[in-house]
């Protein structure tokens, strides 16, 4: 091998492989005339890859699928437990603060209100305005066939105030603020900040989670109200320019069509939805393990779960209000 002037690990391994194959076939192989500077490399390579790693046990794909179903069923039970645990911890912290109001983190609460409430207004107004406009446009387009254009106002009013206003705002808040909560708490968990906090004798639920959830519970009803108004405004504009119905008539019809009842039904749901979003977001944040991948996964889970819960809650409320006749 005196001719070999350059040799890297890959080359050395190829030589070693050839040699091992020859030895396996029962012959003898030696490398001779190796340049002095490569002797160590050759020696090193001779030691590697002697032992095959244990082959990984790959289960049958069908069994794998079934076991996945089983695992996620058990996982669902754990999810519920985690949710209830966080809900309980939240109420314990809340009662603690009610007994000692000075323990409430006012600075943090105001900051969170600013972030999840004030800063969310523009996007929420924009989206609900568009949704109101689209509903009105569709209504006018289809109702016109029956000559029932004016009922569009009833539809827009009831739909927006009872259902859509709060639902859309809650879904947007889940995507906007819930995911932010999960990501913030998750990265604090990753960097051991939460551990540092608890070793200082402070309760992370009281310091980090309580202000966040309270901010959400305060902000969502207000945002729902603003969103509903924007949607009605959008519907009104479309009625005027597309349906030819002036603002005076629109308002008069709206006045007849909706009662304060519809509005109450919508807004009562908001704090409960906020609580669900906040609890899910915070509990998912605390479930983040050390890696960036887990942070991403938990954030996705948080948004998906809170949107699911918001819709389930909406359905339960619909049943409830129907049975009490509201």
């Amino acid at each position, binding site marked *: 091998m005196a001719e070999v002037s350059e040799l890297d690990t890959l080359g050395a391994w190829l030589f070693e492989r050839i040699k091992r194959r020859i030895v396996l076939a029962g012959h003898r192989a030696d490398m001779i005339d190796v340049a002095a500077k490569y002797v160590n490399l050759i020696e090193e390579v001779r030691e590697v890859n002697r032992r095959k790693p244990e082959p990984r046990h790959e289960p049958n794909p069908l069994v794998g699928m079934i076991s996945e179903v089983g695992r996620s069923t058990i996982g669902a039970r754990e999810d519920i437990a985690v949710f209830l645990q966080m809900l309980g911890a939240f109420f314990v912290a809340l009662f603690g603060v009610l007994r000692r109001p000075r323990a409430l983190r006012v600075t943090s609460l105001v900051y969170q209100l600013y972030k999840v409430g004030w800063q969310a207004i523009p996007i929420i107004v924009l989206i609900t305005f568009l949704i109101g406009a689209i509903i009105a446009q569709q209504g006018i387009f289809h109702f016109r066939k029956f000559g029932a254009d004016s009922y569009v106002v009833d539809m827009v009013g009831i739909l927006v105030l009872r259902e859509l206003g709060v639902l859309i705002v809650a879904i947007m808040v889940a995507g906007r603020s819930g995911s932010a909560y999960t990501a913030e708490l998750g*990265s*604090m968990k990753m960097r051991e900040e939460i*551990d540092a*906090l608890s*070793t*200082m*004798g*402070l309760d992370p639920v009281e310091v980090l989670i309580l202000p966040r959830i309270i901010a959400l519970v305060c902000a969502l009803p207000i945002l729902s109200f603003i969103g509903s108004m924007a949607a009605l405004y959008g519907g009104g504009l479309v009625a005027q320019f597309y349906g030819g119905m002036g603002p005076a008539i629109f308002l008069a019809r709206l006045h007849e069509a909706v009662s304060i009842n519809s509005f109450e039904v919508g807004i009562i749901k908001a704090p409960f939805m906020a609580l669900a979003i906040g609890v899910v977001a915070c509990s998912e944040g605390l479930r983040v393990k050390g890696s960036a991948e887990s942070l991403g996964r938990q954030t996705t889970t948080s948004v998906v779960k809170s949107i699911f819960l918001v819709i389930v809650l909406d359905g339960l409320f619909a049943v409830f209000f129907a049975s009490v006749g509201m």
Partner: protein
Amino acid sequence: MQNMDGQFAIRVRDLVVGFGRNVVIDHLALDVRRGEILGLVGASGGGKSVLMRTIIGLIPRRHGEIEIMGVAAGAGRISGGAKQWGILFQQGALFSSLTVRQNVQFPLRENLTLSEVLMDEIAIAKLEMVGLKPEDGDKFPSELSGGMTKRVALARALALDPAIVFLDEPTSGLDPIAAGDFDVLIKTLQETLGLTVFMVTHDLASLNTVCDRVAALADGKIVAIGPMQDLLQSEHPWVRAYFHGKRSQMLQHQAS
């Protein structure tokens, strides 16, 4: 018995900690005397951080008892506060939303009522003690170098002059001069304030100069404990490999 309790800052008996099937700490016993600096050495991934976090109460234990300052600690529950102990985590664990100064002030703010001016002065004093400039106080943790993070974390750990200080690799990532200063600082604080220091470290110089006793963790147990001289004489194969390996020998030769 009463007498014995007063003598130890931390007592660990028969401790077992594991994750799933992986048992990290296996029937470990350890006593840390009041006012001493105890160095803990062990292989990477050997469970030093896990032992420290279990003593603090961040990781639940499977078995065993832990006493801190004569008070039994509940399993998986944190019993003390910033007054009782200060902790320097391996990664610093500074609050990323607060500036350096606010980080150092955090334990003060939670435990004492002081005027803003006094609080600022104390924070600056602590920062200067660990070798940082007052201007660094307005930086955020994301703007610090690894060594600066360690120093800020130490300043925060010492903010309330706690009785016990846990340090997880305080000098790793520091240059030798800074590491030397760090050792001197810890020694001074221990002498003046009577701190008990529990220090995880791989730094042979720290072990030699500041630690009163050194404990070696291998296979989930404390296999040797005592002054540095005793450990150098130890017959345990891992301890011998640790202190008499090529690298350690080289350092010791150069030192002598």
